[in-house]
């Protein structure tokens, strides 16, 4: 939100005592470089995702999506690419390209599809227009190709289901536990807290095999519930919420108790609303975890109809190269929800994560 009329004061307003010095120049240069490094690859991918399949196969290095003009053939049955022919006398004319013959090309002038002439290939250049190809997006989602090898809507629904349900369950289950651990005195409470905190240090990746066997013996393989349930009781969540709930004064709960509220009602009507800041941090974290989760779904889900977006993308990437235009477009669609959430809640997310030190 730099006021553009104010550029000079922006450049000079630093460090009132010393004026604008070379360290500031370096700082901004560093920051700008970093921003380029972050933004360029993503921007490049987005620009690539609206290019035509041919431009992608040919690795057109230009930033904008160029597409060759086409013109219908004499009988109208097929279309030919348009080239610009520079005649030896210097005049130029648009021609339709039929096919190569030796070093020459067989072409026809636009408007005269019947008169086929041969010109040296060195004299013609492709005639292109800048045109984004949005079909890359529409084909795999609502178009005819969607059911073939990348069922985007299915994956999107699966990912959304997992994210929403898992986040809601995570919030309720962990908030209940955090409430018990922060506001009650009972035997074994401190031991519970220690167990939970110490499991923060145990990486979930080292229990892959037994967890898989547990989930499979419960019949949850190839079920979204097999992805959702095992991770809803996160020590991170309990820890985060408990720390916050400890700051809520006990007198509030006692007032509610005097007011005849049951323990459940105290939890639901007093504790949860007052823990909203911590709950929203956990909600954001959970959405991030679940939407981006890859390894655990990779293990539990092996049939493509229950794939999440991340699984679908990685499988699709591994499969083939000639669908690059679809892969890139779908990658953009996958990062879009997260990006939107981030743009809207940016401040909340960064301060929330910075304050809790959790990801």
């Amino acid at each position, binding site marked *: 939100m730099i006021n553009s009329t104010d550029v000079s004061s922006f450049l000079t307003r630093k460090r009132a005592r010393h004026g604008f010095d070379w360290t500031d120049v370096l700082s901004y240069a560093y920051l700008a470089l970093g921003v380029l490094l972050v933004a360029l690859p993503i921007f490049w991918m987005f620009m690539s995702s609206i290019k035509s399949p041919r431009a992608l196969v040919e690795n057109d290095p230009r930033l904008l999506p160029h597409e060759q003009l086409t013109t219908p053939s004499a009988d109208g049955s097929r279309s030919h690419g348009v080239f610009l022919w520079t005649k030896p006398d210097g005049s130029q004319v648009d021609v339709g390209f039929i096919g190569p013959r030796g070093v020459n090309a067989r072409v026809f002038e636009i408007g005269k599809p019947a008169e086929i002439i041969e010109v040296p290939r060195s004299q013609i250049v492709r005639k292109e227009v800048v045109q984004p190809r949005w079909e890359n997006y529409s084909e795999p989602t609502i178009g005819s190709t969607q059911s073939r090898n990348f069922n985007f809507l299915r994956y999107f629904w699966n990912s959304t289901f997992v994210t929403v349900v898992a986040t809601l369950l995570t919030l309720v289950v962990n908030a209940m536990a955090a409430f018990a651990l922060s506001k009650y005195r009972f035997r074994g409470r401190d031991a519970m807290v220690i167990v939970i905190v110490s499991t923060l240090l145990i990486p979930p990746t080292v229990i892959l095999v037994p967890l898989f066997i547990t989930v499979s013996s419960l019949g949850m393989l190839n079920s979204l519930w097999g992805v959702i349930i095992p991770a809803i009781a996160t020590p991170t969540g309990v820890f985060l919420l408990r720390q916050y709930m400890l700051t809520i*004064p006990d*007198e*509030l709960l*006692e*007032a*509610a*108790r*005097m*007011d*005849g*509220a*049951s323990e459940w*009602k105290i939890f639901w*009507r*007093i504790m949860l*609303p*007052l823990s909203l800041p911590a709950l929203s941090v956990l909600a954001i974290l959970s959405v991030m975890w679940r939407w981006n989760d890859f390894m655990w779904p990779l293990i539990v889900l092996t049939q493509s109809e229950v794939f999440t977006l991340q699984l679908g993308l990685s499988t699709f990437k591994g499969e083939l190269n000639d669908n690059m235009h679809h892969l890139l477009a779908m990658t953009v669609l996958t990062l879009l929800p997260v990006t939107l959430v981030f743009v809207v809640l940016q401040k909340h997310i960064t301060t929330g994560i910075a304050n809790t030190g959790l990801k």
Partner: protein
Amino acid sequence: MSTLELKQVTKSFGATQVIKGIDLAINHGEFVVFVGPSGCGKSTLLRMIAGLEPVSTGEVRIDDAIVNEVPAAERGLAMVFQSYALYPHMSVRQNLSFGLENLKTPKPEVERRVAEAARMLRMEQLLERRPGQLSGGQRQRVAIGRAVVREPKIFLFDEPLSNLDAELRVQMRVEIGNLHQRLGNTMIYVTHDQVEAMTMADRIAVLKDGRLEQFGRPLDLYNRPANLFVAGFIGSPRMNFLNGTVKALGSEGVKVALDAGGEVSVPCQFQGIAPGSAVKLGVRPEHISLKDAGGDVSLSVSITEQLGGESYLHGTLPSGETLSVRLAGQTRVVRGDTVGLGLADPALRHLFHAETGLALPPLT
């Protein structure tokens, strides 16, 4: 009838006993103040009555029914907390009606009671606001209102005025007094401020270290403190204590030789003392007068405080003990003067056992 009775009530947290056996009976409609220094257990006692803290041993009876095991919500009490404990995410109206809704009170009844409480406490305009948008005094009123709508048998107040500034405190004191007049309920009020206790209470319970030191009407506590602690705690400025030795016992009472020089007689009974016993003489500053010549003791004045309507002298006696004097009006005495003092009318003198601290009862 809502009476409250405590019988040998104790409370322990782990190994430490914080309430050491308290007996107390509170009548219907009484305004009782628990007063004592911080850490004396007065708040714990209140919370035990409320049901927020389980009783270790002993009985709590409300209307002659033992309520030790009855949950807080079902004892028919309401409490005003020190921090007000208003639900910050609810409007004032919701704060007031939350408790009634929990009790499944019919909706029209809830609205009637909320409106009545709002009118009584003059907060009709505040009903849709949140606690965060209220001033300290307004919050205080909402907290009281939340207790009022419950129409409880007994009101409990836990240092409710300690977060207010001096002026508001006086004002709220009056309001709570009016509320008691109007509702006629039993009220139990905890404070560490003896002025609040003196001005508001029908009866005061003075607590110290988990024990009940004295329970009685405010002026009884002032006039006849049962021991050194109560004598020192009630009254401002504090009562002066002078060490002395019993010289003679007679029909007029006890003759005491003060360490500071001079002799005074105190008209009191003399169980447990004999000539030679160490005693403490208690004299309130407001009962001491200047004597131009031949006073009981002489005071070398170190500080004079002139408040206009009254004056205070603080100084040292020949024995090294300090003494404060309150004089009506203004004084000419200045720092460095030595003045003669008359130590009160004999009937206003108090005599205590030096060891036990207990007061010797007056001659009747």
